[in-house]
């Protein structure tokens, strides 16, 4: 069965420091990959997505992610974190066949310290 693992439950980063959130997936072929962000009491906002092509994808709010097939990973990065980036981040996988759905990881909570 397909699965998504986000190994870090909670990460604290100083404002202005760089950020990397890890995501690993389990699936035989290359899935569609997504990162979502959720602020408290808010819905899910799509940060970026990978369907095919260039393995480094750019998203909104200065985020980027790199797909590494050999490691089954899709890690999210940001060079300089802002206090407003504090939120819950979810990695998700879509296996690209009819009758399947987005499978989410358990999420990583990002705290930003001043």
């Amino acid at each position, binding site marked *: 069965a397909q699965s998504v693992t986000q190994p870090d439950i909670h990460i604290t980063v100083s404002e202005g420091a760089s950020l990397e959130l890890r995501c690993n997936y389990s699936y035989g072929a290359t899935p569609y990959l997504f990162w979502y962000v959720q602020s408290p009491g808010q*819905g899910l906002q799509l940060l970026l997505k990978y369907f095919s092509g260039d393995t480094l994808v750019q998203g909104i709010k200065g985020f980027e992610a790199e797909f590494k097939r050999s490691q089954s990973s899709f890690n999210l990065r940001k060079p300089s974190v802002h206090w407003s980036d504090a939120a819950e981040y979810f990695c998700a996988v*879509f296996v*690209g066949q*009819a009758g*399947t*759905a*987005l499978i989410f990881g358990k999420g990583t909570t990002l705290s930003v310290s001043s």
Partner: protein
Amino acid sequence: EAGVAQSPRYKIIEKRQSVAFWCNPISGHATLYWYQQILGQGPKLLIQFQNNGVVDDSQLPKDRFSAERLKGVDSTLKIQPAKLEDSAVYLCASILAAGLPEAFFGQGTRLTVV
């Protein structure tokens, strides 16, 4: 373009009562999902519709949960009777087609069962 609409935004009920949530997906989106997001966890798929047919309801607790999408447009999710552990945010999402898997999420309905 209007987004995915959900109502109500918040609901508080006593255990053993019934409750219903409504979702209107983006116009033309054939696939609709209901997810349950318990506090501190990633969204978990409850049911997937393709037009007005159920594609996957394997994780729907059918003894108490039901869902329908009668005309292939809006959808209703019902819980009867509710249990304390049903307290969660219920998210509705839609995608245009399986080959275009970018999902659009509604704001969710936060259910509290007391």
